[in-house]
């Protein structure tokens, strides 16, 4: 029973860690589905994280913080959209710049915040609650039904996004733009409007991913709090084949890798020939990134047409190009 309990707790922290990645991955999927590669995820997460914390600290309202975080992420994405959609700027460079900008912006805004704590009233809406009956399920109960509402929002969002992309008319148009904008254009779709909307909403989700850290998970502000999770999300987008349902599983898998790092650190492993070897946290923190490299290799070997990236990803589209 004890072992089941600790597995349950491990899964619980897996899901929490995975939620950060899930929001960011969903945001990235939305953006890449309209054919825009946004490497600014890390930057938008940090912007959401710091503005979320800032708003929560000053207003004492959790939901105001939630909304402000989304707007901050969306604002980062808007900058990206203006440069890449309207001015056809290079998407890779613009994304990288956005990441650097977001890091600097969050450091600047966060400077006075690193010594303060979040008021209880702002944290209240996101406290973990037990869903009656369901939370009693062994192992899975605590992982899925003893969580913050934030976690549930992420899951529901993923499911909605799947339906939106695959079953609705907007989703069809969206996919067409990412695959072949010339085709979408000739069919009379307002391509730039679609791109703006989805890039900005994608940025909002990234901002919310970052804010989960500062509002729920930690909840404090530290400089560079996302610690590279935005970059993992870039891989997870590929790993989940641009599919929001698969994004749930890949985000939770990487969540597990990160939380296993916390669980295993400082465990002493007996060395052959006497003595012990301590798994230090630096080594364990490398795990998700090592896995990222492995995943990228696996993905490169994938051949199925439906699992390939949107064909027009990262390419500019100008109607009167010849």
């Amino acid at each position, binding site marked *: 029973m004890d072992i089941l309990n600790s597995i349950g707790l491990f899964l619980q922290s897996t899901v929490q860690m995975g939620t950060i990645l899930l929001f960011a991955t969903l945001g990235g999927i939305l953006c890449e589905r309209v054919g825009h590669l946004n490497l600014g995820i890390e930057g938008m997460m940090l912007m959401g994280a710091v503005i979320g914390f800032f708003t929560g600290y000053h207003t004492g309202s959790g939901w105001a913080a939630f909304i402000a975080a989304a707007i901050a992420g969306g604002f980062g994405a808007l900058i990206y959209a203006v440069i890449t959609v309207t001015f056809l700027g290079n998407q890779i460079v613009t994304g990288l710049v956005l990441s650097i900008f977001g890091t600097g912006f969050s450091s600047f805004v966060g400077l006075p915040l690193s010594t303060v704590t979040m008021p209880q009233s702002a944290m209240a809406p996101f406290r973990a609650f037990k869903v009656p009956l369901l939370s009693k399920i062994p192992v899975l109960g605590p992982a899925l039904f003893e969580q913050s509402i934030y976690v549930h929002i992420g899951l529901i969002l993923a499911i909605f996004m799947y339906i939106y992309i695959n*079953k*609705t*008319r*907007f989703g*069809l*148009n969206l*996919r*067409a733009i990412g*695959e*072949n904008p*010339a*085709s*979408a*254009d*000739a*069919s*009379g*779709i*307002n391509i730039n409007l679609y791109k703006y909307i989805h890039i900005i909403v994608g940025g909002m989700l990234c901002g919310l991913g970052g804010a989960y850290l500062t509002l729920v998970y930690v909840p404090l502000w530290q400089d560079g709090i996302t610690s590279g999770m935005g970059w993992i999300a870039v891989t997870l987008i590929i790993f989940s084949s641009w599919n929001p349902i698969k994004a749930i599983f890949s985000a939770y898998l990487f969540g597990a890798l990160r939380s296993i790092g916390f669980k295993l650190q400082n465990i002493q492993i007996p060395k052959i020939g006497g003595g012990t070897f301590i798994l230090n946290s630096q080594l364990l923190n490398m795990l998700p990134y090592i896995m990222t490299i492995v995943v990228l290799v696996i993905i490169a070997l994938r*051949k199925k*047409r*439906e699992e*390939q990236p949107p*064909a027009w990803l990262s390419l500019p589209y100008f*109607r*009167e190009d*010849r």
Partner: protein
Amino acid sequence: MQKYDIELINISKSFGIVKANSEISLSIAPGEIHALLGENGSGKSTLMNILSGIYTPDEGIIKLDGSEVKFNSPSDSIAAGIGMVHQHFKLVDVMSATENILIGLPGGLFIKPKKATREIQAVADKYGLKIDLSKKVYEMSVSEKQTVEIMKVLYRGARILILDEPTAVLTPQEIVSLFGILRNMKASGCSIIIITHKLNEVMEISDRVTVLHKGRSIKTLVTSETDMTELTTLMVGKPISLEIKRTDAAAELIKPLLEVSDLTVLNADKREVLDNMSFTLSSGEILGVAGIAGSGQKELCETIAGLQRAASGDIIYKGQSIIKMNPRDIIKKGITMSFIPEDRLGMGLVGGMSVIDNVILKKVQMQKGIIVDRKAGKKAAERMIERFGINTPSTHTIVRKLSGGNIQKVLLGREIEMNPELLITAYPVRGLDIGASYNIYDILNEQKSKGVGILFIGEDLDVLLGLCDRIMVIHSGKNMGIVDAKSTTKEKLGLMMLGQRPDDMAS
């Protein structure tokens, strides 16, 4: 006064300093098939892109049913009942036919695939189109893709249909069935604009024809009152003979040169892209290769040139097996390849480099030392420009800035400068106008009479019949048979391209 569905009056459009259309006028009567005839670069596609709202004209008026309209985007044009079937299909590969047809259509939030499929099928049946709506586009043949494009336009209720070079990629049999569909559409009241540069098709299908030349509309004629000679003269701007002169190499030059036996090549998915292919080629001979696009033409060229590895079989060149050699050694043996892909620059030339540099790129392989001999390169480039009449401001001009015909001459010219004994050339006249094409045919014939063996991968059957000595037809990587170009017919070649062997045909 004649009533027109659509009128274009004095349309002009420039791209930078290039005037693609200047003061073009065109009017389409209800229920007519109107051919738009002109060489490449004469402004046909630009004009139709204006009509379908993709480009906005600099000057000029578009009138729909007598009243002036402005098309700011494709959706305006679609709303006006105009539908365009583009030359380069605008389809999403990973989607099914149904999904492709539904893109951009208004309607409820959720797509109802079954209901939509039923409705589309009903429209298809009305016009007699055969189509598998659940098939993914990437699994379709070229002609199936075209059917999807046509369906897309018809399902939107278009009454004016524009087809941009619809027959360029079809076999003769597929062309017959396409024309049948067009006649059905005409019978049900649609107007059709068909863009082409093939005169026999203009004569066969159209009611009226408008000739464009260098961005201007020269004349509109009633098809039944004109003939091919008049149209050619109008199109080219001067009288021109449509015969390709076949030359013959002196008998003593004709020796066995290349022997390919049981050649099998696999692609990444381990499928045979070349399947047990065998044939021979002599010096002083042009062997044509006909086949639907993607039947293994590219793989054949690349395997002989050493760029792809064969799974089995052998390639004997002048008595020696070259199958295991690398491209560099194969070039040294006197085999060169020029492959013109659809985007022209994709293979062979570096678009951002000058003419000289592109020449040096190949010559440098033969040279000793590490410093590039630019003087020799310049000399070779000048010689080539002179010999092939390449129209370029200087040898330092960046290749991408030249016109299509001149780019192709640079590519072919560079290969011929190497004094090859075996010249592999794929689609050398792709996208060229009549004058430039005949220029290339002359170059090939000249090489042939010098005793060079030429493997000519072609697409236009008339050209293959006129230029080649023998024609090999390939179908999904298999050799369907080699026929004598002087005695075979287009219909027979078409059937072979679709996978029939000549001995199965009752002739």
